């Protein structure tokens, strides 16, 4: 997994609430058997017009946001379907960090599994960052995961909380399947205990 340590980049404002994963990547794109190539389809329904041309009003079609690496958005981002394609599409576009008041649970986990940092902040702080993002290219945000701060263009630092396990995985780019496989013996012990207490689970 790709590491995430610090990031300084253009932040795109998307002041919408309850952005669902169908909106992030519509179902027709889920027919792929790969993780890559979904960037152009990110937010397809609101990013392109019916004739397939870009909608100039959509934030990611405007300069400098075409190069956005951070997305600032409203509450309950990523709700709905479990599709990890939503994360792959954001990543494919170049977004490595999303900042919002909160996220839907499955999306939250999926992002971290792909080296993407999601920052939860109180609405007031998100509002400030949304204003910064609206200023465009002169207003780059920085995110420092080690120190757990978002740094505004004026230098103000906003601290955020994050689960220590997720932080560690992201900072070190750890493959958690490999980590779990180191605990194989414990898993086998659990299974033999379960075979005795609830044998019908083993046929």
């Amino acid at each position: 997994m790709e590491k995430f340590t610090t990031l300084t980049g253009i932040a795109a404002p998307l002041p919408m609430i309850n952005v669902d994963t169908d909106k992030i990547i519509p179902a027709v794109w889920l027919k792929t058997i790969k993780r890559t190539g979904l960037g152009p389809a990110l937010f397809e329904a609101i990013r392109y017009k019916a004739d397939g041309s870009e909608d100039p009003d959509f934030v990611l079609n405007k300069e400098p946001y075409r190069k956005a690496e951070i997305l600032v958005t409203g509450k309950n981002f990523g709700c709905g379907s479990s599709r990890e394609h939503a994360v792959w599409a954001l990543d494919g576009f170049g977004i490595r960090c999303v900042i919002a008041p909160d996220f839907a649970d499955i999306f939250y986990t999926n992002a971290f599994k792909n080296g993407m940092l999601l920052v939860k902040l109180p609405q007031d702080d998100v509002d400030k960052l949304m204003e910064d993002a609206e200023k465009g290219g002169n207003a780059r945000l920085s995110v420092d995961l080690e120190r757990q701060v978002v740094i505004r263009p004026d230098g103000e630092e906003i601290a955020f909380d994050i689960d220590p396990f997720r932080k560690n995985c992201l900072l070190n780019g750890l493959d958690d399947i490999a980590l779990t496989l180191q605990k194989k013996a414990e898993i086998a012990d659990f299974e033999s205990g379960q075979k005795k207490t609830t044998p019908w689970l083993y046929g």
Partner: protein
Amino acid sequence: MTSPKTLFDKIWDSHVVRRDADGTCLLYIDRHMVHEVTSAQAFDGLRLAGRKARRPEATLVVADHNVPTTDRDKPIADDDSRIQVETLEKNAAEFGLPYFPLTDIRQGIVHIIGPEQGFTQPGMTIVCGDSHTATHGAFGALAFGVGTSEVEHVLATQTLIQKPAKNMRITVTGSPHPGVGAKDIILAIIGQIGTAGGTGHVIEYTGEAISALSMEGRMTVCNMSIEAGARAGLIAPDETTFAYILGRPMAPGADQWDAALAHWKTLPSDPGATYDSEITLSAADIEPLVTWGTSPEDVLPITGQVPDPAAAKDAAKRRSMERALEYMGLEPGTKLAGIPIRTAFIGSCTNGRIEDLREAAAIAKGRKVAPGIRALVVPGSGLVKKQAEDEGLDTVFTQAGFEWREPGCSMCLAMNPDKLAPGERAASTSNRNFEGRQGPGGRTHLMSPAMVAAAAIAGHIADVRDFD
């Protein structure tokens, strides 16, 4: 004495392989269901790392999302869909996983076939790369959706790295009026707590109105827990649950039944167990419900009117309402009953079970679908389809002018040819009215199977209570 535990706590605690100091747990997963849309990349990951599936026999594989609901004797016409289904078949064979092919009568929507086969049992941990895995919570199993990376993790290790969720209890007291069913109950709950109301929680549903539901109804309720933001829903197992499981192909056999039953009876929450949040609704207050917007929380009684964004409580909500109404092509103040539809869809993992089809057929019987309306009935599995045919429900539907289809997810997410055209309005028994969910530009109104049947016959959204 140990402190009283909830159903969730009991299942969780009995599946912890290892607990780290910060509370992160390695959680054992008893059963894993796999479908074509969220698994190909996981199998690739396993192959790349040279890993195997740890417990193939604890896994069940089926294709449902992409499959056509007509012409099933022919190859799938859409290339991408066909490749995805073929990839699933190859992966199941390569990793030695049990697979129900499209030609098997047991094929169907993953959340319908698990319970149907007895694969789903109380006290289990169950996952699937699909958010509606919450459905299986109706059996008192801790069941939740995961992404593709976690699918890979479960295949390789039969575990997940998780932190425990919080406990929420939703009690639905009393009994509902005629015309109000499980779908209305869960829509009422979502309307009350919102689509993020359950985030970080597992919801346990209790109360007379819940206990009185059949397993099918309980599955409808638990299914939409995710639309309330909760990762899982739970209903304590009881005699209704046990009677449903007994004798199913993958259920504990006669030699193990008594031991299993004794264990299952220990699962319900202890008296005095505490919850992080509690909500109570009265079933008698619930009317048949319909969504008007593009989020499942945008729900109102059939007697209501399209709301006015000007009355929204904050600017963000107002903007999202304005956008929803524009997308839906609706004006504030329009009565919900009477909004013309073009399509009616009965099916999905929310409402594609036998009882749902009976409920819809009871309204359709002896009536006709209104002229110009496309009405689809898509049974949730081959076995549901067969049972419905044995009961003559297919004839009721076809005589009324509904199309009777092969099982799959179908128009619930429009990955197969069943989809809405831009601007087309549907009454649907599915679970999501998101923009574009049933086809780009499509407009979805969620409601119960009886209400969808009523809408198909009336040609517009209608009150099922007017159809005796």
